[in-house]
């Protein structure tokens, strides 16, 4: 089990992968990917029980993960490769013709680690609820984890799923909302605000936690609390406060880097801030 500082070092490499992938193809979404790099690193390198070498679609007797905001595929692909689902060299094919690493994650090309196509927003939580339901039917005690965007909560299907998971008491569902308060066109609060997010989830019979999604120790501690809360028989949401672009100073504090790639000079500046800990692909 890696220590907190070891996880931080892995996250640094994941961030290097993200900016290098997006730079190489001059397209993709670095901002949200960087913001969620710590959480996905913690999930894949410590929190989840999973089986990279023996990947199956069904995923029986292991924890599952659904990336609902599929546009942050760079961070997903990086943690999958770095944790052993496929060779890290394949990260170089991201978004290129004939690649398994499509712009948004898909099962269609057979990439190990991906169980559902996402990208059209607001669908991942329903799919995860179905997976959680199946685990309950099968007496499988494992957990289904979800990462979703905050802007994504504007999609109505999420509220159907939130209502459903609360009604079904899907306590094996742990959802992290990437609460960076940014979306493509600007600040969430200006575009379509959803204040009292905690109250909203609680009203649908969920348990709510909050954490700093860019603080590895807080991520680990909050996850311990989340697992303990399962005993209360409700689905769990973690309002995960992150900084879009976290780890690269000039990408932070704005929605500008939601979906644009760095140029050569910006890549060099970014990489200077991110120690190469596991070796670049």
């Amino acid at each position, binding site marked *: 089990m890696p220590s907190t500082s070891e996880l931080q070092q892995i996250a640094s490499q994941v961030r290097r992968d993200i900016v290098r992938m997006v730079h190489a193809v001059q397209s993709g979404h670095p901002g949200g990917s960087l913001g969620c790099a710590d959480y996905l690193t913690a999930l894949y390198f410590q929190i989840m029980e999973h089986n990279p070498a023996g990947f199956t679609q069904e995923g029986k007797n292991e924890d599952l993960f659904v990336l609902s905001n599929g546009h942050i595929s760079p961070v997903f692909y990086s943690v999958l490769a770095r944790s052993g689902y496929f060779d890290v060299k394949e990260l170089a094919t991201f978004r290129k013709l004939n690649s398994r690493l499509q712009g948004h994650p898909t099962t269609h090309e057979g990439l190990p680690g991906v169980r559902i*196509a996402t990208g059209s927003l607001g669908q991942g939580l329903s799919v995860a*609820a*179905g*997976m959680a339901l*199946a685990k309950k039917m099968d007496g499988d005690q494992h957990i289904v984890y979800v990462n979703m965007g905050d802007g994504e909560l504007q999609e109505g*299907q999420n509220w159907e*799923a939130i209502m459903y998971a609360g009604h079904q008491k899907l306590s094996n569902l742990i959802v992290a909302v990437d609460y960076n308060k940014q979306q493509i066109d600007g600040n969430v609060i200006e575009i379509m605000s959803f204040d009292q997010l905690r109250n909203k989830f609680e009203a649908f019979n969920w348990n709510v936690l909050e954490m700093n999604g860019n603080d590895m120790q807080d991520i680990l501690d909050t996850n311990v609390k989340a697992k303990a809360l399962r005993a209360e028989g409700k689905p769990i949401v973690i309002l995960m406060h992150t900084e879009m672009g976290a780890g690269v100073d000039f990408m932070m504090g704005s929605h500008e880097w939601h979906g644009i790639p760095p140029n050569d000079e910006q890549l060099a500046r970014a990489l200077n801030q991110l120690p190469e800990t596991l070796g670049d692909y």
Partner: protein
Amino acid sequence: MQEIAILGSNDTRSGFGAGLLEAGQQNDNVVALCADLTGSLKMDAFKKAFPERFFQMGIAEANMMGVAAGLATAGKIPFTGTFANFSTGRVYDQIRQSIAYSGKNVKICASHAGVTLGEDGATHQILEDIGLMKMLPGMVVINPCDYNQTKAATIAIANYDGPCYLRFGRPKVPIFTAPDQVFEIGKAVTIYEGADVSIFCTGHLVWKSIQAAQALNEKGISAEVINIHTIKPLDEMAVLNSARKTGCVVSAEEHMYNGGLGDSIAQLLARNLPTPMEFVGVNDTFGESGTPDQLMAKYHLDVVDVVAAAEKAISRKK
């Protein structure tokens, strides 16, 4: 001309309900989801027999499609149930991304298709669903003709690995196919062999086409009637062989011209065997309130319309 025996009368949705129960008895992985229309979809028997495998989803069809995709990922065989309109157009992107593109083994079961839904009117009468579903890569599209065939089709899709759309209807219609039939996905069923015109029909229009062939026979016209219960994958050999034999064709369906069975047949013939063709279907218009019989007549989906289309197709033969 051989008489086709009527074995009884029932709605095709009841055939679905009976097939679902049997599929559930055959395979523990079969699960059912319903969006607040359990009685309308005739899913009560399954719910009673397997309460732990039946999921009431409420009036939330988008979530239902996603949950079904998740259940399928975990190895279950989910059957979703709601009206055809809410099974397709309402949730198209959910089906497209979470089921079709993701290759999930979900069975989308759709009742009250077409104008025979009746008095509820056009808000509920979808006539575009076959087109919407057949355009999705990998989606199987099935529209059986009576109670027995719908029951057999329901059991068949449970044993097929991949996304399926099963379309059926509301009103009681004659039962004329065998109760013990084996349903072969993608295999057309020839009801009458004929020499002068081929009638390719699906769903409720199969019985209408049988009656049309009998009327044509009295006029000295020999019509071949082929039940295309599977619109996708289309039984191309059955269509081409019949069209080659008779030299002109009619398609008959309770659906828009655009996107329907006729559209699939026309594409096939245009590429391989250009043949005079007439269409029985709805031409780019919405339905309205009325009884099923009134609507089938008003929207030109009746026996007389199939007869007229056949005669016109024959007249276009060189």
